[in-house]
């Protein structure tokens, strides 16, 4: 079994309203060094075998929306 981690993030040019809320909250807690926050998703897949093209297909077909999101993945060690 292989574990693959897929990271899906909102494209940098898009406003991340949830991330902005978290950054505001951190600042209110006194973490004034925080000036920004972006929130993405971690999707962990358990697979019988690893195949990069298959992974890419999964991301393109379902896991990420290319209009608004970027993705990258890695095999967990």
């Amino acid at each position, binding site marked *: 079994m292989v574990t693959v981690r897929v990271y899906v993030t909102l494209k940098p040019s898009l406003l991340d309203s949830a991330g902005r809320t978290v950054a505001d909250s951190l600042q209110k807690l006194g973490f004034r060094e925080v000036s920004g926050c972006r929130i993405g998703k971690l999707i962990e897949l358990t697979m019988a075998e690893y195949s990069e093209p298959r992974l890419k297909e999964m991301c393109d077909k379902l896991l990420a*929306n290319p209009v608004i999101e970027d993705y990258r993945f890695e095999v967990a060690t």
Partner: protein
Amino acid sequence: MRVAVIRFPGSNCDQDALYGLRDNVGLASEYVWHEEDSLAGFDAAFLPGGFAYGDYLRCGAIASRSPVMAEVRRFAAEGRPVLGVCNGFQVLCEAGILPGALLPNEDRMFVCDAVWLRAVNRKSPWTQGADRILRIPVAHGEGRYFAEDATIARLFEEDRVAFLYCGPEGQSGDEFNPNGSVRHIAGILSEQGNVLGMMPHPERATRHILGSRDGLQVLSSLADASLWPSPRLAASTAGRAI
């Protein structure tokens, strides 16, 4: 005109849709479960609002891959009427039937309010005869329409922007935009004009007692058989035949 009101697990505006279409427009309408793989016998599809599949992954993402969507795609290609409202609009975008995507509202708030809409395109089968300004409610947390600049430019060039959020006199302004949608876009049309996706809920504006009847201006398009299949598609098909 028989209308299929598609039900996904988590749809919650399906009854409003059926009530609007059947009781207020007088159309034969029926619920169709999302696992159906045929829309045989139906002429139009309505994708209602809600939180299909809990909006897991992304709004509309899982629903857009369900079996019935192959048929909705066929309807879209054949020039038949397809209307996606709120979550239904998100499903149509996720399916790639309409361009763009819906993001969380800019101010992070769920918005539930009546808004003013300016009908930009008043010639499409869905919007012909519509008043210039309509009053229709919205209720969503993820309604910020986004598409790349080139796509937005194309939508305007091709007269595919159905509705913009506006003020009571039709004026544009950020204060009238409930979610931060790019260029105040509230609803868009497919290339053929037969698919309409919009965040506001016409099915919730069908009786005076509901606060507005302006939604009927959209829904009653389905009652005019002469509009369907979409004339624009018919014209382009004829062009190809030549």
